[in-house]
């Protein structure tokens, strides 16, 4: 165990590139990414238990004929889950990037840090225990749960001599998540019917979610995500470290609070719409960072695009991978994202 000092990342010599070639290249990449989002969305409408052609999918959106079975399937089943997957994927990925910047912790993710655990505990309590069924009401529980859990995790994780090291934040998040999961199970344990619903909900899935839940949370998702995207400059400064940021004239406490509020709102909203979906916020920003480098203005924009593609593609995978029945997308993202955590943990910069 070496004496731990807050990991001082080497200040990159050229974090922010203004060379026109770089800017044009990255913008073009972003446009290609947007085109891919459209392509994945189309695939998501087409793939599934019932085969649907591109033309039928097109008609279902722009020229809806409710007598056609295929168009009905697209409208009532495929479209909601595609929209939810796109929205939640983008939002979760961007919050992951924001958390990684403000905690200067490469392992930050809303599921690892217990934020989505808090939200889902509050939602399960509201729906199954207090009998609240309207999404207009239980989304507020999600915000409260996410807020309490994240404040607790950061209070405990940032305490002590060394401040918020990745490992302390991770352990605080893991333990608070497991405590909340135990309480959630205790709540649903007594009633078999509730347990049946809750166990699928707790796995995290975008399938079979009513679209009206998504409409309730979409303002938070969209506004929150856009706000995050425009924080790139602040996050660039923050990621140089507390002291550097302050000496550059930044009000770091204010930036932290703004980012924290955005993270809580977005995670609460995404959890209300899709259940706790983990590791999107961990994996996507790291993939993006590996390709385009450490400039947060680009990382955030790319995270939105890649996050949407990632979760939608994972959801398509859920539908085609099993011969009968479906996987829950939360399981796929955990199975794909947890090795990321292992990979990052082996890097010397993270530990310790």
């Amino acid at each position, binding site marked *: 165990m070496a004496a731990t000092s807050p990991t001082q990342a080497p200040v990159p010599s050229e974090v922010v590139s203004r060379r026109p070639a770089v800017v044009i290249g990255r913008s073009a990449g972003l446009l290609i990414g947007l085109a891919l989002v459209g392509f994945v969305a189309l695939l998501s409408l087409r793939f599934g238990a019932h085969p649907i052609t591109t033309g039928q999918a097109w008609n279902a959106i722009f020229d809806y004929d409710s007598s056609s079975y295929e168009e009905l399937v697209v409208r009532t089943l495929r479209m909601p889950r595609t929209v939810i997957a796109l929205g939640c994927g983008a939002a979760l990925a961007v919050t992951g990037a924001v958390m990684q910047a403000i905690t200067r912790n490469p392992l930050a993710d809303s599921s690892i840090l217990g934020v989505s655990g808090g939200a889902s505990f509050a939602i399960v309590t509201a729906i199954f225990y207090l009998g609240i069924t309207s999404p207009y009401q239980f989304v507020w529980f999600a915000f409260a749960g996410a807020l309490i859990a994240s404040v607790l995790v950061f209070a405990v994780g940032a305490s002590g001599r060394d401040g918020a090291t990745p*490992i302390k934040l991770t352990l*605080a998040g893991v333990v*608070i998540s497991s405590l909340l999961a*135990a309480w959630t199970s*205790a709540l649903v*344990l007594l009633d078999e019917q509730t*347990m049946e619903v809750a*166990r699928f909900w707790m796995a995290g899935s975008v399938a079979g979610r009513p679209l009206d839940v998504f409409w309730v949370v979409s303002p938070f998702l969209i506004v929150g995500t856009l706000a995050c995207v425009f924080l790139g400059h602040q996050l660039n400064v923050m990621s140089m470290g507390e002291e550097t940021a302050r000496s550059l004239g930044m009000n770091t406490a204010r930036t932290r609070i703004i980012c924290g509020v955005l993270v809580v709102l977005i995670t609460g909203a995404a959890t209300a719409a899709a259940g706790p979906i983990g590791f999107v916020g961990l994996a996507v920003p790291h993939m993006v960072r590996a390709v385009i480098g450490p400039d947060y203005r680009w990382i955030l924009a790319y995270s939105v695009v890649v996050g949407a593609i990632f979760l939608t593609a994972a959801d398509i995978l859920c539908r085609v991978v099993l011969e009968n029945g479906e996987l829950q997308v939360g399981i796929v993202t955990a199975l794909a994202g*947890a090795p990321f955590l292992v990979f990052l943990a082996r890097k010397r910069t993270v*530990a310790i």
Partner: protein
Amino acid sequence: MTMTTPDFAMPARKPDDKPGHVTIRNRWFAVRLNYRVLGMCLFTIGLLALLTVWAMTLGSYRIAFGDVIRAVGGNANEEQNFIVQTLRLPRVFSALLVGAVLAMSGAIFQGLVRNALVSPDIIGINTGASLMAVIWIAYGFTAIWLPLAAFLGAIITAASIYVISWKGRIVPGQLILVGVGIGAFLSAGTTWVTLQFPIEQIRPAIVWTLGSVYGSDWGDVQLLGISLLVLGPLSVMLMWYLRALQLGDDIGRGLGMHLELTRLALIMVGCGLAAIAVSIAGPIGFVALMIPHVARMLAGALSGSVMLFTGVLGATFLLFADVVSQHFLPVTLPVGIVTAAVGAPYFLYLLYRSNARV
């Protein structure tokens, strides 16, 4: 200033004769036990005995304290004999044995990594055992091999964590984080398996994943007892090697130890203990994390006698938690939820104090 005379007269003290200790030494092993810690053990065992009897008086059918003691010997009336001997005694024994086994396994892992935040539940070893066990239960394989399957799950997980975090040496922080990642991966697998089955079929497995000693029978007690009889003394004996390892690899090597073999033995014993507990009671959390720490706080650095004390303390704690979960809550809950409710805040407090330097 007078010259101190070199005390040639003093006989060289044999290392066995450290005051306040008793040494058991023979050809194969040597254990030095601390009288003070042995006294604490005896005191806790007394407490545990009282708790055991008290636990058996409670329930929808109340039995008086004296009647419980008579019923254990089979001298009370028939009804009381039946209730105590076939219903309450196995459960009480399972609870206390599971507690002892879990706590000792936690102590081994914490000692091995030299970090108080490590325990088989945090670094995913229990998750590995429980994934195998859930598969075993869900697909209806023979129940008799369940402990072996859980052990295999635990040992494969421990080996993967060790191999993946090995980079010429083990850095505790990296090992913990790798374990957390592997644990997340495996628990996603467990969720996947449970979602494949209808609720009526999988409910036992789900309840089991919360950790409970409900419905234990004498077969479970037998298995736990035998494992503890084998692995308990073994882990007490291994404590000397563990302490030598804690001084650093160079000193260990200088003492003529085979380092990787010693580590392997400790990991095998730790995994064995964890797997037995998990296969009987499910992944009961936080006992393995909290109890070794409390024991070290009360009795001092890890040694053979402190290992014994850890076991006794774990037994007392889990039995008490089981009594609380069974009788003193508005609804009956699996004991794993009670230990989480106590253990998670304790862990956060440890983290907050940063006592456990990570």
